Each structure stands twice: as C-alpha cells, then as structure tokens.
C-alpha cells in the first residue's frame, strides 16, 4: 500500500512538471507586464525596466523557468511580485478558506446527493424519484453565479437570515490558528463564533454544493440502479434481509465506487473552480487569489497557486483510489 502510494506520488511528478510548464507558457503569453502593473499608471519606463530586471523578467524564458523549477525542488514556491511575500506563507489562509468552503459544500452535496440518489433508485419511477431527478437536473442547469445572486437577494436582503459575504462576523473575529475557522473556533472554545462561522458558510456553501449535489445524486442513482439488479442483492433479499439494509449495506457499498470518483473529482473542481462564488460572496479563497494574480500578472502566485490547486486535485484523486482499495478487496495495490 505504502509502496503504491509512493509510486503514485512519483508518477505525479511528470504531471505536475508538465503542469508548471504549461502554466508558465500560458501566463507568459498573456499580454501585460507585471512590472507595469505593480508600479501603476505613474511609473516611468526606467522604473519598469529596473523592476523587470529585479524580478528576473528580462532573462530568457527558459532561464526563468529553470530558476522557478529549481526553487520548487527546494520547496520554494516563489515570492509574490505584488506583495513581496513568499507564496508559501501567503497561500495557506486562502487555501484554507476555500478548503473549508469546498469541504462544507461537498459534505452537504454528499449527504443530500447520495441519499436522494439512493432513494430515487430504491423507489425508481416514484414521484420522489421524478422530483429528485428534476431538481437535480435543474441544479446542474443553474449558473451558480446566478443562484448565488438570487440567494443573496432572498436570504440576505429580503429575509435577512444569513450573512452574504465573508467568512466570519467581523465584529467578533476568529483568531486564526489553522485558518480553518470551524476548527479554529472549536480549538479556541468559542462556540458562539462557531455558529457565526457556520452561518457564513451556508449561502456560498449551498451555491457551491448545488452542482456536485445534483451530479452525485444522479450518479448514485444510476450506479444504484445497476447494483440493485445485481445477483448479490437478490441473494441478500433471499436471506430475509430488510430492504433498508439491503439497500444501505449491500447495494450502497457496491454502488459507491463510481460515486466516490465523482465526489473526488467534484471536490477537486470546487477547490479551483469556486472563483465566481468566491467573488460573489467575498470569500477570501484561493480561486480569487489566483484570479487576482492573473489580473495583476503576479507570475509566481499564478504558477504556484495553480500548482498547489492541481496538486491537491491529484492528491484527492489518489485518496479516492486508496479509498477504493479499502472498500473493494478485489482492488490490489502493488
């Protein structure tokens, strides 16, 4: 098993290297000069040249690339051109913010999606099935930024139930330990804050959860339908097992593997793909961090930011693969 993980990690290297290369080439193809952006409209040509020199931007691209790579191998993600902070130091709070949101969203999505899928499959062609699947379809058909705006409008402005921006009650700020605020409030023993933090998670969480929830529900349903026809399900029933356990024990465990893949993929996608939600809900997340870095041509942040997101994405997929092995004894890792 460890051996397998090691091997998979080794295999990651070319993918991530390829990734750095592609990102590197793309961002350098984007017109716009970081030095210019940093120095603003006022800057003179000389100033820009000077800064370019300092940032190493006047080296040939391959030198820049290899410098970056060498840094990477030393565990150095580079330094933001704009804030002059090491990306490695700067990135965590953003990542944590998105991670918390994505996790929250995916938990909602999994709990509701998986159960809706199961019940739909169990009572195939019932009104619940139709309703759940129509809702799921509408869910995947909704532009989330639109949903986010409607949510803000309705729950935030009209009903005033839930906060529409940020991660915390600013008047009562969470003192960050891990930057995962839910965890932090618990560590700090501030359960009053926990409630607030959770409240802040609700609206962006729902906006973000909608699509994965719908996808998971549909996937679970079709996977369950397939499994429910399997012989071993009939065997379980023939033993006299209750339908509930047949479904939730025998069928679910078998149906969950393709669902897990989807969950893994979606979690990974949420991490990098939450830009719009993060913008609408003013969530200080990694997506916006990178998006802004693109706007400011902050090359090291773009490069390392995308690299970190991609790394997490592949790690989640690795985790999913390992989970397969735990669920399915037929899968052997060696």
């Amino acid at each position, binding site marked *: 098993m460890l051996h397998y993980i090691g091997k998979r990690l080794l295999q990651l290297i070319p993918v991530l290297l390829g990734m750095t290369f592609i990102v590197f080439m793309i961002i350098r193809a984007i017109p716009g000069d970081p030095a210019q952006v940093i120095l603003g409209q006022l800057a003179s040509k000389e100033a820009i040249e000077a800064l370019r020199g300092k940032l190493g931007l006047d080296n040939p691209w391959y030198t820049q690339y290899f410098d970056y790579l060498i840094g990477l191998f030393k565990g150095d993600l580079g330094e933001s051109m704009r804030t002059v902070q090491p990306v490695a130091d700067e990135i965590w709070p953003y990542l944590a913010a998105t991670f918390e949101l994505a996790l929250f969203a995916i938990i909602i999505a999994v709990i509701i999606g998986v159960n809706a899928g199961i019940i739909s499959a169990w009572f195939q062609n019932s009104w619940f099935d139709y309703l759940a699947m129509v809702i799921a379809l509408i869910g995947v058909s909704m532009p989330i930024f639109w949903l986010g705006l409607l949510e803000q409008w309705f729950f935030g402005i009209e009903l005033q139930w839930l906060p529409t921006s940020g991660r915390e009650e600013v008047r009562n700020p969470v003192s960050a330990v891990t930057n995962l605020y839910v965890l932090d409030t618990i560590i700090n023993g501030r359960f009053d804050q926990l409630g607030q933090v959770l409240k802040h998670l609700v609206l962006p969480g729902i906006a973000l959860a909608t699509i994965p929830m719908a996808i998971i529900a549909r996937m679970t349903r079709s996977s369950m339908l397939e499994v429910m*026809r399997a*012989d071993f399900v*009939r065997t*379980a029933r*023939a*033993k006299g097992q*209750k339908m509930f356990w047949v479904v939730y024990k025998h069928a679910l465990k078998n149906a969950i593997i393709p669902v897990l893949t989807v969950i893994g993929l979606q979690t990974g996608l949420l991490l990098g793909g939450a830009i719009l939600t993060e913008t609408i809900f003013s969530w200080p997340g990694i997506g916006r961090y990178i998006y802004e870095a693109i706007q400011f041509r902050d090359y090291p942040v773009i490069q390392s930011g995308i690299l970190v997101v991609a790394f997490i994405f592949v790690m989640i997929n690795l985790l999913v693969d390992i989970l397969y092995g735990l669920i*399915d004894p*037929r899968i052997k890792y060696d």
Partner: protein
Amino acid sequence: MTESKLILEVKNLQTSFFTDDGVIPSVDNVDFHVREGEILGIVGESGCGKSVTSLSIMGLVPSPPGKITNGQILFRGKDLTKLSEREMRNVRGNDIAMIFQEPMTSLNPLFTIGNQLIEAITLHKKDWSRKQAKARAIEMMKLVGLPRAEELIKEYPHQLSGGMRQRVMIAMALVCDPQLLIADEPTTALDVTIQAQILKLMRELNERLNTAVILITHDLGVVAETCERVVVMYAGKVVEEGLVETIFNNPQHPYTKGLIASVPDMRYKKQRLYSIQGNVPKPGTVKEGCRFAARCESVFGRCTEENPPLYETSEGHKTRCFLYDEKEILVNDKTAATS
C-alpha cells in the same frame, strides 16, 4: 416410494411483467407441488419462466415491472402471495432458501464470506450471539465440504473459485435449516467436473437433512441424475410433469420428446440430431392455442385455437397436449393439484 406430505403447492400461478410493450405473462397458470424431502426438477429452455417461477415463490419478483397477477403459492398451507413483506422476510432464508445460477455474482464482493454467512444466521436467529453464529457458519462450511473453513471465513468471494463460491452459497442457504431449497441453475456456470461435485453434494445434503429441493436447470442430464420428479416448462407453461423415469422413458408432450431427442449423447454417436424447428416464441406473442403449436410436428387444428389443459395420463404424469385428450383422462387442473 412412500407418499410424504406436500410442502409447497403452486396453484394457477401467473406472474406478469408490465412493460412498455404491454403486459406479458411470463409465467402463466403454472401448477406443481413439492413433497417433503424430494428433489423436484424444473427444466425448460432459456426464458421459459423457470427463474420467474422461483422468484415468485420467494416473493422476489422484481417489481416494478413484475407482479404476481393470479394464483396461490401455498407453503405448508399458508398462501405466500398474501403475506406482508415483513412476514415474507421471515420465510425467506428461514423456511425457504434459494441459491442462484451465478456463483460469481451472487455473493457480495465487498463483504467477507463470514460476514455474509453470519448475516444470514443472525437475521433469523435473533437471540444468537455472534460467536454462536460464527460457529454455525463454520460448521455449515465444513458440511458443504469447504476446506480451511476457519480461514475462509475471513476471505472475500473473489479469493474463491467458482465451485467454492457455489458451496458457500449452499452453506448460506442451509444455515437456518430451511424446509425447502430452491436451486436456480446452480451448476450452469461451472465446469463439468466441478458440477459433478456440487450435484453430488446436493444429493447428499438432501438425504442427510431431508430438505426438499427444487432444482431448476436446462440440462436434461442433470435432471436425470439428480431428481425424482420433473416439471417441464415451455414458454411460461408447464407442459409435462411426472417422475423422472416416466418422463425420460415415455415422454408424451411433443416438446419433451423433441427436447430429449435433440440432446447429443456422449455415449454413442447419432448420425444426425433430431431438431425442433423454429424458435421459442417471444413471450406474449402467442395469444391463442398451444404455445408449442408453431413448432410442433403433430400439430392439428385445435392446437392453434384452444389452450390445452393439463391431462393426467397416468398416476402423477400430466401432459398439456390435445393428443392425450382422446384417452379421456381429462382432469380438472385444480383437482389434480390438490390431490
């Protein structure tokens, strides 16, 4: 042969599937019975309704689209079709157990053998401890001739060969001492030498535990070697029923005759096999008359117009064919079944 008590009576059973193409009675007016301790064979070609019949008995017809639309299934006098799902659960695995055709897919691949066996036990022996259940599981595994039972219990189905899996299935079926075991093509997926092992095991268990068995197969050889009585099905109907010897030596229904004649015999070489022309009709396509009429060599006018009833041609030997009408032994279906 001593007359023993009836354990199961299937009367007039009709199970239909409600599909997009209409209602298809896949099992139509099926009557048969099983006596205590006997092995009843049900033979017939693919799609003739063998599995649906057995699933009907277990109350496991996939629904929707399937449904028992008529008839009774009396298990020790109790009509199973009238039981609630809850009551039915107590019957399943406890009174009537079932094993399926595919040993490869009938076990849940993600749970250990032990887990699945123990589940079968604790479902019905609520007061048993896990330890007791485990002991019982091991005992049953030994009974069906599985080696290294103590270790096997921790293994997963994919680590076992087909034959071993089928033995596990049998052990699982017998774990609560059912009175009736339904085996739906239990050896079809196995190799001949392994099939021989399993059939031998089933015969032995039947003798030792006196469990009644319904053995469903399409292999006439298996029936001939294993069963006492046999029911021949064709396109959802029982076409002939009788003792094994009678059926093989004196088949009456043209389909049974053709079937027996078309099997190549390993013992001698026929120049040319007998073959029944045509195909089995698609279920639901034959509305009027005998379902075999289109393929029958002895077909005559009445066959395509009327539905032949079962004629009892001699004690316990029944045939659904107008050819035996002349012999004036028309028996009412119902009286035949209850006798």
